[in-house]
């Protein structure tokens, strides 16, 4: 099968898909969407890349180490934001007590946004990992 069409279309589409994914992540607080949804979209773009160009392409863009780091750091960032509440003298995951020079509701908004980003980072790496690992050795058999 001639992959040229697929590859070309993919090359054109992937940046847009990713952009759309980031949009979903960033606009989670104001419109339908959020970290999970956006993260999956971005991850799916990488899967598309892997499908069109082979797993190595995706692997070289986002390597195993980077994916693990993104996974862990995304989760850690969430837990860290939660712990900030305790550090600021409030309760776990209590945002409005975090000392920023803004009204409390704004602080909440910022933290929700940050959490969305953390989730997005985590999910995009994870979705790609799941795909790559699932296909890992079946590919070799082909």
């Amino acid at each position, binding site marked *: 099968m001639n992959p040229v069409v697929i590859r070309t279309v993919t090359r054109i589409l992937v940046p847009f898909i990713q952009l759309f994914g980031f949009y979903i992540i960033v606009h989670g607080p104001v419109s339908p969407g959020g970290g999970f949804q956006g993260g999956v979209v971005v991850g799916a773009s990488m899967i598309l890349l892997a499908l069109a160009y082979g797993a190595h392409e995706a692997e070289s863009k986002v390597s195993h*180490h980077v994916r*693990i*780091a993104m996974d*862990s750091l995304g989760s850690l960032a969430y837990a860290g934001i939660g712990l900030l*509440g305790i550090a600021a003298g409030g*309760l*776990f995951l*209590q945002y*409005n007590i975090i000392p920023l020079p803004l009204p409390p509701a704004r602080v909440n908004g910022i933290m929700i946004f940050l959490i969305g980003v953390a989730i997005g980072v985590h999910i995009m790496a994870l979705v790609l990992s799941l795909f790559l690992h699932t296909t890992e050795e079946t590919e070799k058999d082909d």
Partner: protein
Amino acid sequence: MNISQHFPILVIITLFTGAYLAPLAGLWKRKLCYPLAVLSALLSFLFSVVILLSVLEHGIIRYHVGGWEPPWGIELLVDPLSAFMALIVSFIGLLAVVYSKDYIAGEIPDKKLPAYYSLLQLIIGGMLGALMTGDLFNLFVMTEIFSISAYALVSIAQKKGSLIASYNYLILASVGTTFILFSTGFIYMVTGSLNMVDISQRLSALESPWVMYNGLILLVIGFAIKSALFPLHTWLPDAHSIAPSPVSVLLSALVIKVGAYSIIRSVFTVFGPGLLEQSGVVTIPVTWMASLGILLGSIYAITQTDIKRMLAYSSVAHIGYILLGIGLASTASMTGGIFHILNHALGKACLFFCAGAVLHKTGIRNVEEYTGLAGKMPITMIAFTLAAISLVGIPPTSGFMSKFYLAIGAYQESWIFLAVILLGSLLSAVFYFRVINLIYFGEPEHKSGVREQGAEIGGVVHRQPTTDNRREAPLTMLIPIIILALGSTLFGILVHIPLSVVEPAVKLLLGM
């Protein structure tokens, strides 16, 4: 502001953070995973000690995560029961992590270590989360965390058949969790709330109870699948026997107990003291299933040759004791049931640790090859004996006391339950003493001919214990074994210590 007020959340977050860090640490230095895991497990153990003490002193702890009041936000609710269970979970979890170091080296490849320790912390953290939470949906989420970690840990060693065991476990337990979610939907539908305390207040004001009953039934059956109540236990023997021993300990001593705990929560807290009469709809069938489980679990255990499988089936019987006590819902039976959670956790953890130590040092899994191990691994085998005696329920070990309370509570309901408890002890004596007999008085097979002759001639044969073939397991494995064996013996004499926690917990649950 006092940091100790945050301990209910920190006890969970510490482990989760450790779990997040483990793969990261694995990228840098794999050796770092173990100390990190020990550290976080130790921290959470210390936290849960403080939590238990403060619950006993100041009463129920309520922690509003995120600062939102209960029906809107998620509330952590720590009463004596959850603090008691949390202490058990974090303590045995700590021991399992400590034990893992030398054991796991021979079981799984080096590159899986980060994943292993990460999952180990997730399973403990998930269980602690399920114990501490006061929110029904959060209970579901936490249940999923420890369940997924459990499925993965079952298959981590990639033994023959472990994948199938893990798959079985996954599918069957997922049916259970989906039941739980479904019932959460039912309950949410009629109450509009997810907070347990709030639900119980609103449920008692409910006029049409059908939806509520459906919810209760699905909730209890969902958790009964998790806790391997008798006819729902089919996933357990494979999963518990194939998993690496520290994981078997976590599964057998803790995970099914957390399921039992969740049944307690759903019957006594969600449905509350106000609806205790009506909850007989589920508790009465549960007692009958538990009675069957006590008898048949022991009978299956008798027919096993694989030691871990035998112990796994014995867990089916013991979860029967616990749920029988809970289902009877009288003061004595509840005391016995909850106290038995501790005893079975200590005893079964010790037995699985011992079986693991034997497996690690000699590769023996078959009960009939346990002959003469007392000479080779005396400390391990003494610990095995103590723990087994405790589980059979012979005084003065702790297992006797919990069965004594259970039996008192059982007779208040019906003599049949008393008979079941006593018969169950008798049956468990059969298989535990079979092993004990082999350990101390069985002879290694190749010598058996010689021994037979000697016995005929002398009546007594003088055997010189040879010191050179003593092969105790390494210290990281031996210390947890010793601690647990001592615990399961000492708590039979110092019963007032656990009872001082169990009794207020029971009073609270029964609304007295």
